[in-house]
C-alpha cells in the first residue's frame, strides 16, 4: 500500500507493521468485519419480522395457521443450530436450483440425482457457472441471511408470543369496553404494550446473534474468525514477505476486544430503549419512573 513496502526486511518495527497491517490479506480481514456487521444489520430486522409473523400465527384463531406458527417455533427451536446450518443451506440451495431446473429445462431427461452428484442443467445453476465470483459470494451471503433469520425468527416468535400474553388482561378488556374491534385492540393496545415485556428476551437474542456470527464460516462466508485463524497462523519466509510465528493469540485477542466492545455498546443502546419503552407502562419499572418524576 505504501511506497516503502517493496522490501519489508529492511524496515523498522513501525514501518514493518504499517506495511503488514495494510497488505491485501489484511484488507480482506477488515472487509470481513463489514460483512459481519452487514449480516447483523440485515438479519436482525428480518428475524424480528419472522418472529412477529410466527407469534401472530401461533395465536391465530384459524387452526391450520396456528399449527403452522407452533410448528415453526417447535421445529426450528428444537433442531441444533449446527445441524440446521450444515443441512438447511445445501437443501435450500438445491431446492432453488431444482425449481429453476423444472421451469427452465423441461426437456432435460437425465436424472437430477446421479449417485452422489446433484446435477441440474447449466441454465438452472444458481448463480450461473459463468457469473463472476462476487455473485457467488453474494448469493452465499443471502443464503446465510435467510438461514440466520429463520433460526433466530423462531426464538423471537416464542419471545413475542409470551410478551403478547403478558400484557395485562384489563387493558384489553377496557379496549373492548370502548368498542374496539379485535384488530384494533391488537394493533392499538396489545402491540404497543408488549414490547416492554419482549425486550429482555429480544436483547438476549441479539447478544446471541452477535456471538453466532462465526457460524458464517459453516455457510462458506469468510468471516472474521476464519481470517483471524488464517492470518495468525505461522508464516514461513518462502511464501510471504512478512514471516511470523503463531500469532493467533493476538488476532483472537483483538476479536475478543471487538466482540466485548460491540456487546457493550449494544447493552447501552438496549438500556436506553428499555427506559423509553417503560415510560407510562403499568409495570413496576413504569411505576418507579413515574414516582421519580413526581
Amino acid at each position, binding site marked *: 500500500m505504501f511506497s516503502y513496502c517493496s522490501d519489508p526486511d529492511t524496515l523498522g518495527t513501525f514501518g514493518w507493521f504499517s506495511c503488514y497491517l495494510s497488505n491485501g490479506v489484511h484488507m480482506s480481514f477488515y472487509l470481513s468485519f463489514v460483512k459481519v456487521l452487514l449480516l447483523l444489520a440485515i438479519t436482525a430486522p428480518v428475524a424480528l419480522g419472522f418472529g412477529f*409473523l*410466527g407469534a401472530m400465527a401461533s395465536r391465530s384463531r384459524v387452526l391450520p395457521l396456528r399449527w403452522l406458527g407452533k410448528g415453526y417455533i417447535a421445529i426450528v427451536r428444537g433442531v441444533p443450530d449446527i445441524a440446521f446450518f450444515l443441512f438447511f443451506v445445501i437443501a435450500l440451495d438445491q431446492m432453488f436450483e431444482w425449481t*429453476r431446473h423444472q421451469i427452465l429445462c423441461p426437456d432435460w431427461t437425465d436424472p437430477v440425482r446421479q449417485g*452422489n452428484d446433484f446435477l441440474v442443467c*447449466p441454465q438452472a445453476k444458481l*448463480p450461473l*457457472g459463468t457469473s463472476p465470483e462476487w455473485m457467488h459470494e453474494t448469493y452465499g451471503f443471502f443464503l446465510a441471511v435467510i438461514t440466520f433469520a429463520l433460526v433466530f425468527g423462531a426464538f423471537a416468535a416464542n419471545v413475542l408470543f409470551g410478551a403478547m400474553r403478558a400484557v395485562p388482561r384489563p387493558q384489553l378488556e377496557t379496549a373492548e369496553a370502548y368498542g374496539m374491534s379485535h384488530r384494533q385492540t391488537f394493533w392499538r393496545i396489545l402491540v404497543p404494550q408488549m414490547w416492554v415485556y419482549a425486550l429482555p428476551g429480544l436483547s438476549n437474542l441479539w447478544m446471541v446473534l452477535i456471538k453466532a456470527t462465526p457460524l458464517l464460516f459453516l455457510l462458506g462466508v469468510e468471516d472474521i474468525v476464519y481470517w483471524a485463524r488464517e492470518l495468525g497462523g505461522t508464516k*514461513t519466509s*518462502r511464501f510471504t514477505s512478512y514471516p511470523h510465528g*503463531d500469532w493467533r493469540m493476538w488476532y483472537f485477542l483483538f476479536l475478543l476486544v471487538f466482540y466485548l466492545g460491540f456487546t457493550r455498546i449494544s447493552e447501552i443502546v438496549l438500556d436506553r430503549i428499555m427506559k423509553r419503552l417503560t415510560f407510562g407502562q403499568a409495570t413496576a419499572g413504569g411505576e418507579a419512573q413515574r414516582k421519580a418524576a413526581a
Partner: protein
Amino acid sequence: MKKLILGTAALALTAGLAWADGHGKTVRMGTEGAYPPYNFINDNGEIDGFERDVGDELCARAKLTCEWVKNDWDSIIPNLVSGNYDTIIAGMSITDERDEVIDFTQDYFPPTASAYVAAADGVDVMSGVVAAQTATIQAGYVAESGATLVEFATPEETIAAVRNGEADAVLADRDYLVPLVEESSGALMFVGDPVPLGGGVGMGLRESDGELRDKFDAAITSMKADGTLNTLLIKWFGEETQTY
C-alpha cells in the same frame, strides 16, 4: 413467513435469467488455501502456490476459463458433488475411499512421502499421541498405526499441537513440513522414517463429469511430456523433489 419464502424463491428464480445464455462455461476450481506450498493465500489475498500455477496452465492448455474458489477442507467433497464448484485441486491424494465418491484425474504430483515431526528427538510415533488433519490419508494411517490420533480441522493447528505439547508428533506431507522445520530454529525436527502414502495427488471431479476429466487428463499428459510440470515441481518443492 410463507409469503416471504415464496418471494425470495421467486426472486432467486428470476435473478440470473438474463445471464442464462452467452459465453461458454466457467470451470470453478475449488481449493483449501491453507496448505503451502500446494495452495495458500498470498500477501495480496489471492490464491497462490504450486496448484495455482498448475491449474492455470492446465486451463490454458484445455482452453477453459477458470475461476478459483476457496472452501474449507472438511466440506470440500460435499460441495463438489452438490455442484458449488467443478474441480478439487487441493493437494488431495488419490485413495480408494475417495474414488468411490468422486473421480480423479491422473496424478500431477508423484506419490509423496509423509513424515513425522516432533518437538524432541526419540519420540515413539507408534505409541505416542500423533496429530493429523481431519479426513486426510495421514489421519487414517495414524489411526491404524497404534498411536493415539488427535485430529484438527486445519494443518496449522496440527503443528501448534506439537509446539504446545498437546501431541508428541504430527504426521503430514513432507513438503508441507520442510519449510516449517527449517524456520523453527531447532524447535521442530523430523523423527522416524518417512512413510510412503497415497497414490499421488490428482484433481478431483464429479463422477458424472467424464468429459471435463478427459480434458484435464490430456492437459496433464501434455504438461508431463514437455517437462513444464517438472519445472513447476522444482520451482515450488526444490531440487530434491521427485519429478516425472
